[in-house]
């Protein structure tokens, strides 16, 4: 992902510097860690040898890692490598392994352990990436190209900050292309396989850095502070999203002494946590509570659930990450739908509200990035409701074969509100009312019955007789998607009276922005289902949603 297009939308240089920073900060709130190709960065392009364990045994592979790092950072300054791409080339033997499992196409997600070290202090980050599905080649090697955002890092003192690649895990989702000849015996213990059936399933391939890797896997060195010499104290730390802050790196860490300080990583010298790395389910401690209370008492049809996901911002060629947000839902009662000669139809209207600290909004979602002059910037936004969220579900039972389908439309009137900005730790006031003029809008499939501006998300659940239900269902969750236009911004201005509306509108507002949200299993307050050997948990003991969903791109 690149930010050059945003650059093209920047105003002439006659604008004040604060204006430029503020504008870019807001944009960056929508696209964490996607700044790239800016002056003052340098690109890392490293090809490393790995040994990957496949069902047939260990095989040599290569991983090419490209990313952009700042040429220099200040002590205490947050930054994140941008444009991180991991290209893994698996040999033909690996392709044969996958083909033997009936796969014709694979979708890969990568997890690269990266040791971050400064002097004797170390920390470990996980760089996650996702790849588009690729067909298995008929001959030759298989190349998987994954991309993703990575956690921010703060160097606590002066000295070189090193990034060193370690273990690499590749999660493969296998899809059949042709009738397979799956061999269950091919499921070796070394590779974790979970075949869902012939020609489909999943496989995790663990790879270790080869002993002869150049530089022992060193990816980049970023000088921090005035000098480049190692500093005496402080542990660099990635964001909490890794869940591993404070741990020293893998064997690839340049300084074997790094382990000595691993326990100190969360000491008083630890940096502020900046963002949650996408791709992993956050800990419950890291998500806002989602429960009914005295101000919002439950009824006998009350449900709650978390929702999380991404919203693209086309003009920025990037995506905003919405962290798990609480929805309180009043489940509707199904009523008979319209007559249909081929189906029995039930319609249900449910209503929902976001719930965050008593307000009908998402939690603030902070994002951190580097502006062009590498001042660390933290921006915060919320999505605020301007009315209740309506959820229309239609169950259609086909009489000919008893196939049942549930189509669900979620209509949410939501404005995007920029609440806070910090540049280099200094708050920058954009005013209390910096938000989109109207709700995010979508083309409604039934505008006559659903007038007004609102976002529309759609999900479909389906069940063939005798088989499991799949897809999105309000009660059990799933993926909702849609497309939205981001309206013009209004009310955005600095304390000295500078108007930022036009700048934001030109840079962010526009049509065709894809949204993908994942809703978790609901908890029914009046009929809670707790985890048992027979039942997956739907509710925690204090009646919060048991499931915290993971955002998907």
């Amino acid at each position, binding site marked *: 992902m690149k930010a050059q297009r945003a650059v093209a939308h920047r105003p002439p240089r006659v604008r004040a510097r604060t204006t430029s920073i503020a504008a870019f900060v807001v944009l960056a709130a929508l696209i964490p860690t996607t700044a790239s190709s800016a002056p003052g960065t340098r690109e890392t392009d490293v090809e490393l040898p790995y040994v990957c364990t496949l069902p047939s045994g260990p095989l040599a592979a290569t991983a090419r890692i490209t990313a952009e790092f700042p040429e220099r950072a200040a002590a205490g300054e947050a930054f994140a490598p941008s444009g991180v791409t991991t290209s893994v080339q698996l040999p033909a033997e690996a392709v044969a392994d996958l083909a033997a499992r009936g796969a014709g196409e694979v979708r890969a997600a990568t997890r690269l352990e990266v040791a971050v070290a400064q002097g004797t202090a170390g920390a470990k980050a996980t760089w996650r990436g996702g790849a588009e599905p690729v067909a298995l080649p008929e001959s030759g090697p298989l190349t998987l190209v994954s991309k993703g955002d990575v956690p921010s890092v703060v160097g606590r003192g002066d000295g070189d900050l090193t990034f060193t690649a370690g273990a690499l895990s590749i999660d493969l989702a296998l899809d059949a292309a042709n009738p397979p000849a799956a061999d269950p015996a091919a499921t070796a213990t070394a590779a974790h396989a979970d075949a869902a059936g012939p020609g489909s399933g999943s496989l995790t391939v663990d790879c270790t850095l080869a002993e002869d890797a150049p530089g022992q896997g060193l990816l980049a060195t970023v000088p921090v502070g005035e000098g480049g010499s190692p500093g005496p104290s402080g542990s660099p730390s990635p964001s909490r999203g890794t869940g591993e802050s404070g741990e020293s790196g893998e064997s690839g860490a340049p300084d074997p002494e790094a382990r000595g300080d691993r326990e100190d990583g969360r000491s008083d010298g630890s940096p502020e946590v900046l963002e949650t790395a996408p791709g992993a389910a956050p800990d419950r401690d890291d998500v806002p509570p989602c429960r009914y209370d005295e101000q919002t008492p439950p009824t*006998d049809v009350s*449900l709650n659930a978390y929702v999380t996901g991404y919203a693209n911002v086309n003009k920025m060629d990037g995506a905003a990450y919405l962290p798990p947000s609480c929805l309180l839902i009043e489940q509707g009662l199904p009523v008979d739908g319209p007559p249909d000669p081929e189906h029995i139809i039930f319609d249900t209207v449910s209503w929902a509200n976001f719930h965050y600290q008593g307000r009908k909004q998402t939690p603030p979602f902070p994002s951190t990035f580097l502006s062009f002059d590498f001042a660390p910037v933290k921006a915060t936004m919320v999505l605020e409701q301007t009315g209740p969220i309506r959820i229309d579900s239609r169950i259609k*039972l086909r009489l000919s074969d008893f196939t049942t389908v549930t189509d669900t439309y979620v209509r949410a009137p939501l404005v995007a509100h920029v609440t806070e900005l910090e540049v280099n730790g200094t708050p920058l006031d954009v005013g209390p009312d910096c938000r989109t003029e109207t709700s995010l809008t979508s083309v409604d499939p039934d505008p006559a019955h659903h007038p007004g501006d609102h976002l529309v998300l759609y999900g479909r*659940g389906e*069940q063939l007789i005798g088989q499991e*239900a799949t897809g999105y269902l309000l*009660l059990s969750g799933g993926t909702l998607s849609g497309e939205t236009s981001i309206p013009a911004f209004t009310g955005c201005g600095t304390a000295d009276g500078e108007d930022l509306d036009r700048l934001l509108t030109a840079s962010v507002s526009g049509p065709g922005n894809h949204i993908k949200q994942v809703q978790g299993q609901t908890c029914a307050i009046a009929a809670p289902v707790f985890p048992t050997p027979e039942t*997956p948990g739907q509710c925690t003991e204090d009646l919060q949603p048991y499931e915290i969903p993971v955002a998907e791109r």
Partner: protein
Amino acid sequence: MKKNTRRSAIVVCAAASALGLAVGPSSAVPSTVWTVTPSPAAFKATNVGNIVLTATIPMTCTVSGAEGTMNSATGNPGDVADITTMTFGSSASPCTSVLGNVTTTSVVPWDVIAVDYNASTGVTKGHIGNVKAQVTAGACKFTVVGKASATYTNSTGVLAVSSVVGDLSVSSSPAPVNCGSVVTTATKPTFKGNYAVKVKSTNAIPTIVGSNP
């Protein structure tokens, strides 16, 4: 009402297509002695293929199981087994429907009732009796009660449950709540699926033989 008629038709149709349903002529002389081997003995049963519960809309369970004790019995019908544990779904594989995940809690004991034995095929016909299960899908809750027609085949150890319309009903006390028009007391649920029965201690297939000495 027209729509109700159509719904009944669906259930009938679904029942007729069920696996293992073998409604045939009764034996000339009804069995009054039911010899279960071994007896008494603890048994366990696990599903073979998916279990489908239908209450207007189908619900599928990929995991289901039963445990209990079996005993030889006399009389017709004969109570040849008590089911003391009956589960639908697991923590990893909940039962699903287009409403969402469905949780079914069985109120046991259930009974296995033998009615007719065909000596030439080794198949016992009868039903699962005293069925009672509380079903929830989100805020929708209802209770299913009644029986479910079934057959047991000695050669395979398969208990084929295939209820017919009228076997099961939706309880009016407690009545369904928050299910709207999908599930009402007029709904005719069905329960279909096959279970492999084993003697718990030996994994052997038990047999049921009916006779009239």
